[in-house]
């Protein structure tokens, strides 16, 4: 049990799936990032991903996140149990 007044540093680890040209640039199909678990959003995720994986940093402005298979906006909260994917430069058809 923490002492009263003691701050607990909570960090959650998230795995982000990469696809297509971004997976090729990063030479991997997942990237792990750490975020404070207090009200973390996709905006925080974007910053953390740019630091954790510089190979995709330049393409992040043209990318969105999918959380649990739904495209979401920057204010969408993220949690450790979420399935998160970076959706950038799609090219179906």
């Amino acid at each position, binding site marked *: 049990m923490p002492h009263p007044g003691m701050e607990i540093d909570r960090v959650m680890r998230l795995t982000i*799936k990469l*696809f*297509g*040209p971004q997976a*090729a640039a990063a030479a991997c199909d997942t990237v792990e990032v750490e975020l404070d678990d207090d009200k973390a959003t996709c905006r925080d995720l974007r910053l953390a991903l740019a630091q954790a994986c510089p190979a995709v940093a330049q393409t992040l402005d043209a990318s969105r996140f*999918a959380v649990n*298979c739904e*495209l979401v906006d920057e204010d969408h909260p993220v949690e450790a149990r979420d399935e998160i*994917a970076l*959706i950038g*430069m*799609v*090219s*179906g*058809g």
Partner: protein
Amino acid sequence: MNINVQIIDGPLPREPIALLAGGAGAVVDFEGIVRPDEGGRGIEGLHYQTYDPMAKMSLRKLAEQACERFGLISLSVEHSRGHVPTGQCSFRLRIAAAHRKEALAAMDWFIDVMKRDVPIWKQPVFTDQAETTTR
């Protein structure tokens, strides 16, 4: 509203999936075929990657939106996953509507939104690249 969504490994079969089109005055088909070159460089085929199950869910949601927005009778979409050689079909959209105008408008709208939102990626396999990797 009748909707069919399929993601198929490899090239699409030659025959499109039968579509219920009762009451339709217009049935419009579009087929995407893999071109033999990309930017002047010969290609052997395209490799399609899909984010499953989101790709299929997104196609279905898009189909539902198209049916509602344009008042369609039915919509069938098929998309390839994996390798599709040059000259083969990788994407097929068939739309049935009461009139030509909404069928054509829906076709254009669907493809534009799909290319923006549906998590499917394609990577050309260049002829010289294929030769290099098979040596």
